[in-house]
């Protein structure tokens, strides 16, 4: 198999598992949010684009959750991890669980997140965890298209009509504080980085800014000042929105435990 871990002597460290769950849950939760657009897009092309992005993210999440289940070694598969964990056990970035609100805000969040995933996958492609490196190498290609799609629309809407500009600026003002979580220093990150499994997310800030700032400028949007606000989804402390999202996503397995289709 592609499992070429050099540290297979002991069970994976708790930090390693935690790190993979953060990647998996962020992809899964945003994928679930984007799936809400299915049948509701402003035009059919964008309905399809958002649901295709959702499919890619859910596909990435499936691979990552399967891997997390292997690392954990307690026999939980992707479905058990997706459908049978509670809110506080989820490790996604908070920004991924926020409501879509409107098309512009959905696009802007996709842009901010894809610009973060892109350098993350690139760094993970040389992870000492061979399976994680393989997933990252595959996902990097998909994320490039998500980023391009979201960047195009960010410019069109930001530098569009008075109404679209105003909505995009409001969305940026609201979403920007949540991007601080991407780069907040964190003990799990430090341990994983020291083991050569993945980058500490704080080191990705320069690459993210290089991708994000020129597009926001072209979109004529004003970048808000940083504030002390910090969200903690990565540590399992979520906004009120995740519980509602999981209630919908997990409904079937909760109502009919073990159901298969």
């Amino acid at each position, binding site marked *: 198999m592609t499992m070429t871990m050099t540290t297979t002597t002991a069970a994976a460290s708790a930090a390693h598992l935690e790190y993979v769950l953060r990647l998996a849950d962020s992809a899964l939760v945003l994928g679930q949010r984007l799936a809400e657009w299915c049948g509701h897009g402003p035009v059919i092309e964008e309905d399809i684009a958002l649901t*295709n992005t959702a499919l890619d993210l859910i*596909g990435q999440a499936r691979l990552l959750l399967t891997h997390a289940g292997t690392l954990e070694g307690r026999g939980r598969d992707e479905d058990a991890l997706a459908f049978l964990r509670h809110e506080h056990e989820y490790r996604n970035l908070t920004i991924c669980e926020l409501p879509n609100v409107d098309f512009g805000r959905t696009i802007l969040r996709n842009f901010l997140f894809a610009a973060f995933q892109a350098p993350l996958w690139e760094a993970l492609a040389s992870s000492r965890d061979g399976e994680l*490196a393989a997933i990252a190498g595959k996902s990097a290609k998909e994320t490039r298209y998500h980023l391009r799609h979201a960047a*195009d629309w960010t410019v069109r809407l930001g530098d569009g009509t008075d109404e679209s500009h105003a909505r995009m600026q409001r969305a940026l003002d609201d979403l920007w504080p949540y991007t601080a979580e991407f780069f907040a220093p964190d003990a799990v990150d430090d341990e994983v980085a020291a083991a050569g499994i993945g980058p500490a997310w704080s080191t990705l800030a320069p690459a993210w800014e290089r991708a994000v700032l020129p597009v926001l400028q072209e979109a004529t949007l004003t970048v808000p000042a940083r504030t002390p606000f910090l969200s903690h989804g990565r540590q399992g402390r979520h906004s009120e929105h995740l519980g509602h999202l999981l209630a919908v996503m997990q409904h079937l397995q909760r109502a009919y435990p073990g159901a298969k289709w």
Partner: protein
Amino acid sequence: MTAMTAEQAWQVLARVADPEIPVISVTELGIVRDVRTDGAAVEVVVTPTYSGCPATELIEASIAAALREAGARDVRIRTQLAPAWTTDWIAPEALEKLRRYGIAPPAAARDGEQPLAFVPRIACPLCGSRDTERLSQFGATACKALYRCRDCREPFEYFKPL
């Protein structure tokens, strides 16, 4: 039951059509990376195109069904993620089949950095004109974008380089 050779297994797989683009086979698509046989047992190594491609499971089922029908008793499908699939693995003869089917074949995939605003000129698969415009980054499936020809006015899909 007679033993199946790897060559015979490849021949069987060359007749398994992609469910979304039935004019090309799974081997032409470049997703079958290896075939190993041992008596009537066959192991097929498959690399998925996109992580979220909903056709992946159907393709695996079609591969297994075709091999069983051809006499293989024990069929194992192994998914291999690395190296990641690229459109460069699509067989040259399949590119022409795609074009005739109405899908503009992918340009060479260049790995690494690509400028965000780069929109390549894609030739219309119907009339050959290069005066085309992209309507959407994503077509009916994640692997395709939606274009329109400004000359013959027909919409068409473009298989995106990956």
